[in-house]
């Protein structure tokens, strides 16, 4: 992959010719937006009020760079489609990407850079919880709508603001979506193992609450220091009577976890349950069967078969990934699918909000925010993950989730958890709509 992703995208010519164009038009027409702009040709937006710049704050280097690559690619592809379809309200969409180095200080600086230097009117942001939480105060202060992708629930909770949104899951929705199913189907006695920092503890807290409410037993938590490479001491502490071992890790630590748990034969003694973040950007095949048999809560299932519709199919095609493992055709990278769709969808959502509210410039931000609060998105190429709502009060996305299991080195989806069910279980705990702008 080259660095061209960093350049503002404008799609001058369509390489796929008319077939592609017509599909896009149909696909977009199926979306939640009005259809008026579809008449506007791609060559017309040049005459309008100049491009609209949306910033993308991504982890291109550092610990999260295996995810960041896909966030960047999704944003670029989405921008290309939008521009191909006439831009936003007739104006060209420029997406500028800045690298956070997976480091909160750099991330916050890059957010300023996006807004102040590169003139981003809106920002779709980081999947790194630390970066995201360092960025929200900056975005709020600079009065700029900021979408985060990280899972720390505080971003749309105690540390949220009127400007901070998230279309994906957080630990709160993840627990509400998957834990009840796992409790019913996998077992009642739970042990939780997670990295010893806020994200892990947040998962523990939310899941423990759900399981205990359901009447299950949650054993003492096992927090693993972030710099651990040898997990055996922690795995050895998993009680014998455990029925479900719930784990949340990311990156190297999660590979180490699966490898070492596998080596110790834990998978044979108990059910292993986790969330998609644990295995993002990693193909089960690449870790040689270490994740075999593990159940995952995904929100955008890896195999096409789990959500077999044309939007998903087209998404896979555009992202140049295979329909089973999500592996890139030109490299051996595996998509971080349950998170990387967010920048894609956020761009389309912003497009909808801008067009619907008649946004022309900074002063019209309120209209965009009001559109976003409670926005409904429906299954389309703009929203290939599926139908979802952005709840007005807590600015959180409520979406379908899926339970998958790794079988024979590939994901197999066994259950869809509809967003309505999740919404019902998880009342908003914050209300930002009353906050002044």
């Amino acid at each position, binding site marked *: *992959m*080259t*660095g061209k992703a*960093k350049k503002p995208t404008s799609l001058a010519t369509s390489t796929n010719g008319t077939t592609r164009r017509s599909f896009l038009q149909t696909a977009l027409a199926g979306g939640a937006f009005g259809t008026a702009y579809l008449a506007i040709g791609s060559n017309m937006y040049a005459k309008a009020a100049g491009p609209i710049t949306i910033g993308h704050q991504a982890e*291109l*280097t550092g610990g999260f760079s295996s995810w960041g690559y896909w966030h960047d690619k999704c944003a670029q592809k989405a921008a290309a489609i939008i521009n191909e379809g006439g831009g936003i309200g007739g104006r060209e969409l420029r997406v500028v990407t*800045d*690298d956070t180095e997976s*480091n*909160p*200080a*750099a991330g*916050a*600086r890059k957010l*300023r*850079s996006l*807004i*102040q*230097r*590169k*003139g981003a009117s809106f920002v779709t942001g980081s999947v790194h*919880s*630390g970066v995201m*939480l*360092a960025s*929200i*105060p*900056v975005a709020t*202060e600079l009065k700029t709508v900021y979408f985060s992708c990280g899972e*720390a629930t*505080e971003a749309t909770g105690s*540390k949220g603001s009127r400007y901070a949104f998230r279309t994906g899951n957080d630990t709160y929705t993840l627990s509400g979506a998957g834990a009840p199913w796992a409790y019913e189907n996998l077992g009642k006695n739970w042990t939780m193992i997670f990295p*010893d*920092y*806020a*994200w892990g*503890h*947040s998962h523990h807290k939310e899941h423990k609450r759900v399981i205990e409410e359901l009447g299950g037993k949650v054993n003492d938590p096992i927090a693993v*220091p*972030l710099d651990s490479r040898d997990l055996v001491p922690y795995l050895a502490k998993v009680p014998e009577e455990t029925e479900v071992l719930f784990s949340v890790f990311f990156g190297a630590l999660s590979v180490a976890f699966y490898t070492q748990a596998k080596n110790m034969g834990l998978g044979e003694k108990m059910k292993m349950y986790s969330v998609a973040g644990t295995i993002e950007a990693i193909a089960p095949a690449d870790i040689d069967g270490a994740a075999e048999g593990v159940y995952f809560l995904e929100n955008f299932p890896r195999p096409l078969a789990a959500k077999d519709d044309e939007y998903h199919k087209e998404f896979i095609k555009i992202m140049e990934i295979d329909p089973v493992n999500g592996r890139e055709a030109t490299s051996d990278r595996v998509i971080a699918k349950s998170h990387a769709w967010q920048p894609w969808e956020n761009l389309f959502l912003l497009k909808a909000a801008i067009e619907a509210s008649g946004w022309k410039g900074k002063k019209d931000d309120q209209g965009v925010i009001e559109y976003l609060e409670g926005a409904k998105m429906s299954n389309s190429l703009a929203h290939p993950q599926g139908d979802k709502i952005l709840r007005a009060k807590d600015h959180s996305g409520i979406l379908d989730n899926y339970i998958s299991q790794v079988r024979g080195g590939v994901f197999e989806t066994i259950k869809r958890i509809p967003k309505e069910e999740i919404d019902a279980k998880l009342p908003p705990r914050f209300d930002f709509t009353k906050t002044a702008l």
Partner: protein
Amino acid sequence: MSEIAPVDGGKTAQTPEQKLRIFNGVLSIGLIAFFLTAPYVVPMITNDFWVSVTAEIMIWSLLAASVNLLFGYTGLLSFGQALYFGAGMYGVAIGIAKFGLGFWTAFGFGIVCSVAMALVAGSLAVRLTWHYFAIITVVFSLIFYFLALTMSPLTGGDDGLSFTLPPMFKFGETELSLTDPTLQYYFIFAVVAACYLLKWRLLESPFGRALIAIRENDVRAELIGINVYMMRLASFVVSGFFAGVAGALFAFFGRYASTSYMFYHVSGEAVVWAIVGGAGTLLGPVLGTGVLILLREELSVYWDHYLLLVGMIIILTVIFAPKGLAGLIDTIFLKIVTPKAKVARKSEMQLTDSKVRQPAE
């Protein structure tokens, strides 16, 4: 030798050293003028973003300056300044978010935390020198890093602790707060400038000279009656103070504190900034911090793997400009100003040598 002696009457005959001093003076004034006018000048040239980068560079340069005070002026290489940075940062964040302190009290609290931390850690650490000192400073900072990580209800752990800025001043209805970017910039400028001024005064004072004496020759310093332990401790505490102020400012700047700023990598970066800029020079840290941050900022636009270049630049600086950028500028200036004078002096030295060589009676 006589050429060095001041020439009576005219100022016309300046030595290269004098010229260098003037040059450095001009450079400093230029730098100060730039920082003073940045919020107005910079947006005229580019945009607001660079104003906040400038502010951030000032803050980080203060952390580099704290490394510089210890390493460049006292001869102790600390790899744990992030600890005092973190203490200042958390002092402010916890003060505001948990204790509900006001702006100034939180600022003071942050500084007190960092100074207290430096006093405790320093009283042990300065018993050691060189390698051992460098390592124990990392060890201390790691201990508190892990402590902060475990106390996440208080510190927010890796995800950090964010807070809303309390107002600086309140006059009836009108509130002044750092949410005004220009005010924020000048607040940071004023505090950082005050710290540099303080550093400069300290270094000009008997205390500062004692530190330099210790750096140059601690044995000799002890033998003329300098209490080397106390001076090193004082230097350690002052540098902890600078790091703490930087941390407190950074907390205000980001409205946020996180343990990730306490990790040894942050200390490492500060050391790199200080040494690349030029250890033992007042403005070296500003240069090093500024150049490296701007470099990263710009390079990252062009290449995914720009860190390769950053690493190479660091190594090349160390190899080809061991006295840092400040030293490099001085050397270049001296070369431009005095090609002839230097040659003359060299030959004179050789003459003296040959005189010495002659057998004596």
